[in-house]
């Protein structure tokens, strides 16, 4: 199919048919603010902060839900658009708990970023505010509707991607709220605690209980690696502060999982820094395992293996490698058994 030619803010741009204005703008480094958009989800057009001007169109159009057309002239940064966006964000903030000082999402909150970009210091709209008290008896996911902007991302990710439909909108108009069936705790619903809702929430309405007060996003270093659990091979971003993993996220633009994770991938990381970790080699002496130096431990093993090999032959020694270890370690383990010990008695738990 032929390319589509359009202009954004006067700049000539080539796009693929079927792309949205938002996608094309992003590819070309033009930022259009959004709140309800997640590339994993279908276009929704709820928050209206991505409205743009399209020459000849009667109304402003949502960039996330409008496909590009040949000859289209789009403007993303006009004064009328600024005014609309500012009003929308002011309205959202008028019923939003402004606890940014201690909110877990500070620094990665799209609402906070947008309020900053639009320079909203004072709010013109001073009206009624909701005060919700929600206690959710699960150890992983914190829900706070006082910070919810009703963008529906959690509702949609649970419906479209996870397909568990745990969340739903209840009530109407100003009283609209995202909740679970019968307002139950997540753990009493079909929820699998995957945390996909946290991954898409643009504010602090959904956050991770385990990460609470452990560190700010700007204090952490993100390291991309691969999940240690099943064979899907999901790419994870470990967020590190002071040598400890404090949170796990995933990049929506890379890996086989494209930002999605399951409950183990997202929340099963704290074993790494668990106090039970073995921190020193141990050798059994008088029936008890006691701490020794690496030199002593390695020498003990080397001497004993050599002795057994000499007395009973190399096939009297067997090795089990590990489906948890890296390719390099598995390769070395079989090389060690074959080249150093001299036996093919090497296997791992593929069958178990």
């Amino acid at each position: 199919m032929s390319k589509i030619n359009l202009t954004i803010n006067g700049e000539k741009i080539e796009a693929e048919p079927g792309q949205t204005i938002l996608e094309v703008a992003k590819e070309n480094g033009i930022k259009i603010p959004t709140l309800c958009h997640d590339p994993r989800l279908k276009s929704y057009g709820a928050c209206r902060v991505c409205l743009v001007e399209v020459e000849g169109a009667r109304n402003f159009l949502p960039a996330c839900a409008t496909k590009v057309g040949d000859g289209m002239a789009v403007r993303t940064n006009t004064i009328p658009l600024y005014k609309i966006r500012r009003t929308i964000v002011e309205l959202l903030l008028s019923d939003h708990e402004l606890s940014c000082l201690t909110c877990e999402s500070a620094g990665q909150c799209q609402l906070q970023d947008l309020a900053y970009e639009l320079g909203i210091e004072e709010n013109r709209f001073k009206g009624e505010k909701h005060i919700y008290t929600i206690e959710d008896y699960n150890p992983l996911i914190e829900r706070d509707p006082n910070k919810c902007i009703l963008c529906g991302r959690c509702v949609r990710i649970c419906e479209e991607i996870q397909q568990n439909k745990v969340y739903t909108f209840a009530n109407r108009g100003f009283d609209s709220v995202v909740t679970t069936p019968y307002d139950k705790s997540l753990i009493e619903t079909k929820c699998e605690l995957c945390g996909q809702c946290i991954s898409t929430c643009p504010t602090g309405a959904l956050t991770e209980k385990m990460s609470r007060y452990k560190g700010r996003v700007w204090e952490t270093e993100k390291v991309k690696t691969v999940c240690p659990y099943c064979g899907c091979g999901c790419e994870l971003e470990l967020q590190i502060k002071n040598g400890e993993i404090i949170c796990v996220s995933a990049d929506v633009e890379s890996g086989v999982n494209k930002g999605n994770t399951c409950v183990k991938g997202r929340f099963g990381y704290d074993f790494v820094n668990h106090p039970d970790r073995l921190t020193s080699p141990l050798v059994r002496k008088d029936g008890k395992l006691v701490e020794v130096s690496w030199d002593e431990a390695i020498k003990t093993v080397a001497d004993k293996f050599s002795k057994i090999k000499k007395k009973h032959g190399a096939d009297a020694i067997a090795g089990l490698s590990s489906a948890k270890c890296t390719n390099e370690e598995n390769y070395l383990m079989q090389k060690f058994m074959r080249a150093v010990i001299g036996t093919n008695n090497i296997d791992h738990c593929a069958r178990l």
Partner: protein
Amino acid sequence: MTNSIADIHEANVILVIGSNTTENHPIVALEMKRAVSDFEVKLIVIDPREIRLTEYADMWLSQKPGTDVAVLNGLMNVIIEEGLEDKDFIDKRTEDYKELKKTVSKYTPEEVENISGIPADSLREAARLFASAEKGAIFYSMGITQHTTGTDNVLSVANLAMLTGNIGRPGTGVNPLRGQNNVQGACDMGALPGCVSGYQNICDLGIIKKCKDVWGVKLPEKPGLVATEMMDAVLRGEVKAMYVMGENPMLSDPDLNHVKEAFKKLDFLVVQDVFLTETAEFADVVLPGVTFAEKDGTFTNTERRVQRVRRAIAPVGNSRPDWLIISNLAKAMGYDMNYAAVGEITNEIASITPTYGGIIFERVSEESVQWPCPDATHQGTPILHTAKFTRGLGKFHAVEYKAPAEQPDKDYPFILITGRLLYHFHTGTMTRRSMGLNEVCKEARVEINFVDAKKLKIKDNDWVELSSRRGKVKVKARITSHIPKGTIFVPFHFKESPINMLTNPALDPVSKIPEFKVCAVRIDKVGSK
């Protein structure tokens, strides 16, 4: 997998047999669900249990555990009987079709109903649904392999895929879902008794020469023991010492009493792990390795994708990366094993492993690559067997149904299936120490059908004692309609209820996999005796 996770939605029909995908491969399950909801893909689930994936399925067939060959032969019987096979594919790409046709002709839907309990008409409907699709993909996991007929089960899956021409195109394939992050890689790297990395047979002259050149030693000739045979060899006194790295046979192996005896009998046991596991408690020397977060290297996922693992934190305490420990040990035994960094090992693998030939460290640090990838310019292989099979023609293996090694009887009237849960992983070494996961799911429960529970006067959460010919375990009951009558399910994650005390160590004669999915047990309410 012959195919890739990304092409699941390109299928017209997906057949999942022996895989509890939403719990064990949740991200693959997302792709299956998306295929059904957004791409109108049909989904057939064949599993004794009403697993969560059945909620999204067009058809769910519940077979009696251990009857998979009969079920698959039955599907093929209908397909051939109704002329739905892919004649062109059979002619051009396969051999030995006649034998298959002859064998499956005996497995009429009525005969299969007698064996498996699946109604004949449901089997017919499933066969038509699968065979009339242009593209059909088959997914399986340990529900297919962990049987004394595991090899036959896999051959039957391959037969079905070839019979319907579902190999070598997007949205098709024989797709085993691998259960551990790097179980594919551990196999690929030659952590197997019969082959060196890249499945190069130890008798192959090419690899013998390569090992001589690169390793500087002659490969041992005598075939080695598989994991499940090692314990017997220890008890016979043939194996005196073991070196166990990152494995926990004391929870994961069948018939744990037997394993325990073996570990006790060993002259010398070295365990290298991150925690003092149930196995490490028997060790003479324990070497502290590190977790995935503390090391560099690569993992290979279920779709043969080699991906970079990056060190995020320094080794905890005085622990060391496993590759370094192995090198230290080799040196102490007089073998010159010197690697300054992991990348040198990655590149040595590429140099002697044809399927990994183009997967050098610098490249895989930039992009993930699916093997086979023979050289640096090769893009990797998202789909296997597109033009021909590894051996040339695809061989049909006519296999007959054989009953599981142990059948329920008067004394042990129930069938026990073991497996995993969403919130835990394998022997729980990691997830039982993940605070949140362990709080959500802190104990094993045995799933019992409500009709059986009523007969045995067992209520939800009651303690019951499960016993087999090999051992006993106490566990709480979960009464459910999701498991068929006469069958129970227990996860193997929990050391407090080590269900492998009960499982049958009977092995598949070829793959030596134990029959974890069928053994005969009895249930007694605690306090009722």
